[in-house]
C-alpha cells in the first residue's frame, strides 16, 4: 500500500476533495434527496427480504419451523423473492441509475420531488403487495406474485422514477456519450414494456395455455436480463475506470457488447421451459440465444480485464471498498453468465432444471454479481451525497467478508447439491422422501450461508443509517480498507 501511485488512486476516493469541483458538487446536491431516499429504502428491504430468505431456508430442514399459514414455505419464499427483487434491487437500481445518469450527463436534477413521489408510491405499494402475499392473495405466477391491482400503480411510479434518466440524457451538457448511459437508457425503456405485456398477457387477459408460461419466462428472465443486469453492468463500466482513473479498454468492444447483449438476452428466457409443453423450435431458439450470450459476456469481461490489468494497481483494487465489491461483482457476472449458458444445454438442463442448481445460479447472478456490484456503487455514491465519509472501515470489512463468503458458499453448496438432486430424481431409484432426507445436510449448509449474507446486509444497512444520522461525526479523508 505504500507505492505513491496507489495512494493517488485511492485519494480519488476522497469525496471532500472532489466536492471542490463546484459543478459536480452542484449536481450531487440536486441528487441528494432522491438517491438517499432510494438507498435507504433498498437497504431496509434488503434486510427484511433476506430474513425471509433465511426463514424459508430453515423450513426446508425443519418443516414445522414457524409453520403458520401466513409463513408457509410457499409464501415466505415468495415474500423473500419479491422483497429482494422489487424492494432491494429495484430501489437500489433507481438510486444508482439516477445518480450515474445525471453525473454522466453533467445535468442537474431539477425536479427531485417527482422521483421521490414515485418512490413513495412504489414502496407503499410494495408493502401492500407483501401483505397480500402473506394473506394468500398470490397469483401463482413467478416474479408477478403480487395481486394484479398493484400493476397500474407500480407502472406509474416506475415511469415517474425511470423518466428522469431519459430527461437527464436529453439535457446532457457533454458531447461524449458513455457506455453506461446506453445500458441505463435501454433498461428504463425495456422494463415498462416487459411489465405491461406480462401483466396483460398473464393476469389481465390471460393468453392461451402455455403461452402464459412462455410470456412468464420471457418476462421473468428479461426483468433480470434487461433491467437489473444492464444497470449492474453500467455501474461496473463506470466505477472500474473511474476509481482507477483510466479509460475503458475499448470503446468498440463496448458497442459490440451492448448490441449483442440486447439481441441475445431477449431470447434466452425460454431455457426455463426446456422439455416442457412448449413448441420445440422455441426451446431450440432459447438454447441458441443462451449460448450466444457468451459473446457479450466475454466482450465485457475482456474490457474490464484489460482496464484493470493495465492499471497494475492491484493494491487499489483491494484497498478501495468500491473497487473490491465491484470487481467481485464483475468476476461473478462473467462466471454466472457462463454457467447460465451451460445450463441451457439440453443434457445439462435435464439434470439441473427443477433443482437447487437453478436456485444457486439465481443467487450467483442476483447476489454475487448484482448485489455486490451495487454495494460497490453505494460505497462511492453515498459519501458524495452526504458530504461525509463512511464512519467505520471495520464495518465495511465485515460487510464484505460476510457477503463474499456467504454468497460463494451458497453458490457452491447449491450447485453441488442441485446436481446430486437432479441425478437422484432422474435415476428414479430413490423415493421423494429419501431424496428429501439426503438433502438435509445441504439444506443446513444453505441456511448457514444465507445467514452470513443476511448478517452482512444488516451490517451494511446499519452502516448506511449510521452514516446518514444527523449526529454522525465527520471523518477526515476517505475510508479505505488500507490502514
Amino acid at each position, binding site marked *: 500500500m505504500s507505492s505513491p501511485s496507489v495512494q493517488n488512486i485511492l485519494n480519488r476516493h476522497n469525496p471532500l476533495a472532489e466536492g471542490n469541483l463546484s459543478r459536480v458538487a452542484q449536481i450531487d446536491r440536486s441528487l441528494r434527496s432522491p438517491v438517499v431516499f432510494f438507498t435507504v429504502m433498498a437497504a431496509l428491504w434488503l434486510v427484511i427480504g433476506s430474513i425471509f430468505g433465511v426463514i424459508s431456508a430453515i423450513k426446508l430442514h425443519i418443516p414445522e419451523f414457524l409453520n403458520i399459514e401466513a409463513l408457509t*414455505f410457499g409464501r415466505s419464499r415468495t415474500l423473500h423473492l419479491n422483497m429482494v427483487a422489487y424492494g432491494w434491487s429495484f430501489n437500489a437500481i433507481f438510486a444508482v441509475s439516477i445518480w450515474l445518469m445525471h453525473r454522466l450527463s453533467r445535468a442537474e436534477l431539477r425536479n427531485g420531488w417527482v422521483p421521490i413521489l414515485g418512490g413513495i408510491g412504489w414502496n407503499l405499494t410494495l408493502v401492500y403487495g407483501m401483505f397480500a402475499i402473506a394473506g394468500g392473495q398470490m*397469483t401463482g405466477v413467478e416474479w408477478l406474485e403480487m395481486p394484479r391491482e398493484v400493476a397500474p400503480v407500480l407502472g406509474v411510479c416506475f415511469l415517474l422514477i425511470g423518466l428522469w434518466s431519459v430527461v437527464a440524457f436529453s439535457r446532457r451538457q457533454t458531447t461524449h456519450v458513455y457506455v453506461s448511459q446506453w445500458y441505463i437508457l435501454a433498461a428504463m425503456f*425495456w422494463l415498462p*414494456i416487459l411489465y405491461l405485456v406480462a401483466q396483460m398477457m398473464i393476469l389481465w387477459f390471460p393468453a392461451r*395455455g402455455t403461452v402464459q408460461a412462455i410470456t412468464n419466462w420471457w418476462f421473468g428472465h428479461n426483468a433480470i436480463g434487461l433491467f437489473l443486469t444492464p444497470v449492474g453492468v453500467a455501474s461496473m463500466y463506470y466505477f472500474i475506470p473511474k476509481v482507477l482513473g483510466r479509460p475503458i479498454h475499448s470503446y468498440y468492444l463496448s458497442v459490440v457488447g*451492448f448490441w449483442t447483449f440486447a439481441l441475445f438476452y431477449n*431470447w434466452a428466457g425460454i431455457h426455463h421451459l426446456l422439455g416442457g409443453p412448449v413448441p420445440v423450435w422455441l426451446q431450440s431458439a432459447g438454447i441458441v440465444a443462451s449460448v450466444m450470450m457468451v459473446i457479450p459476456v466475454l466482450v465485457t469481461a475482456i474490457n474490464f480485464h484489460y482496464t484493470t490489468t493495465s492499471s497494475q494497481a492491484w493494491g487499489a483494487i483491494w484497498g478501495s471498498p468500491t473497487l473490491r465489491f465491484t470487481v467481485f461483482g464483475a468476476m461473478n457476472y462473467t462466471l454466472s453468465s457462463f454457467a447460465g449458458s451451460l445450463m441451457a444445454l439440453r443434457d445439462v438442463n435435464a*439434470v439441473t432444471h427443477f433443482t437447487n442448481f437453478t436456485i444457486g445460479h439465481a443467487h450467483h447472478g442476483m447476489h454475487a454479481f448484482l448485489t455486490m456490484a451495487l454495494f460497490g456503487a453505494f460505497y462511492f455514491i453515498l459519501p458524495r451525497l452526504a458530504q461525509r465519509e463512511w464512519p467505520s472501515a471495520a464495518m465495511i470489512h465485515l460487510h464484505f467478508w460476510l457477503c463474499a463468503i456467504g454468497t460463494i458458499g451458497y453458490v457452491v453448496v447449491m450447485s453441488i447439491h442441485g446436481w446430486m438432486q437432479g441425478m437422484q430424481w432422474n435415476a*428414479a431409484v430413490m423415493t421423494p422422501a429419501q431424496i428429501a432426507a439426503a438433502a438435509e445436510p445441504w439444506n443446513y449448509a444453505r441456511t448457514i450461508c444465507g445467514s452470513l449474507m443476511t448478517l452482512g446486509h444488516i451490517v451494511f444497512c446499519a452502516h448506511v443509517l449510521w452514516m446518514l444520522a444527523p449526529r454522525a461525526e465527520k471523518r477526515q479523508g476517505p475510508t479505505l480498507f488500507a490502514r
Partner: protein
Amino acid sequence: MKNLYLIYAGVFFTIAFSWGGLVLSSQIQQAGLVPVASEEGGQLYPRKASGYAIQGKDVYISQGCNYCHSQQVRPAGMGGDIARGWGQRSTVSRDYILQDRVLLGTMRTGPDLADIGGRQSSDDWHYLHLFDPQITSPGSNMPSFRQLFELRRAGATPSKDAIHVPPTHSAAAPAGYEWVPSERGRNLVAYLRSLRLDYNSPEAKLKE
C-alpha cells in the same frame, strides 16, 4: 452512438423481435388447439375442470404449492419423469388450453403433480398427507397444512368426513373430537384428484 432516437429504435427492435418470435408466434400457433376426442363422439380431452376443482386450484395457488411441485412431464430421454411414473406420456401444449392459470412450476423439492390424481386416487391419502406428510411419507420435508382442517366435536358415531389420523399422532383429535377437512381442504383435494394424465392427445399417446 449518441442519438437517443437511434438507440431507442434499436432497443425497441430487439424487444419487439423477441416478443414477436417467442410470445406472439406461440399465441398464433396455439390459437388453433382445441380439446379433441380420441374416438368419434367420445369424451373431449382435456376435460373441463369441476367447480370444486377450480376453487381448489385457488387454494393450491394461495398455499404456494407450485413452488415445490411442477405440473409437467418431460419426454422420455430427458430426465426421469416417465421412468418415475409421473405420467404415462409427456405433457403437451394441448393439455393446458382450458386452464385460466398455467402452473408448470420450476422447482421440484417434491414430485411432479401433473398426474397426481391418477397416482393417488384416495381422498383419505390426500387428507392425511396434507394434515401431516409424515403420516403417509415419512422423511418428507413438506410442512403440514393444518390450516385446511377443523377440529370438530364428534357425534355419537364418527362423521364420514372425519379423517383417520393415527391415534398415536401428536396432533390426534382428543376424545370426543374429530378432524375434518375445511371447505378449502376439500376443494384442494378435489383439485389434486382432477390432475390426471389419462388420455391420449394427438401429440402424445399414452404408453401401451
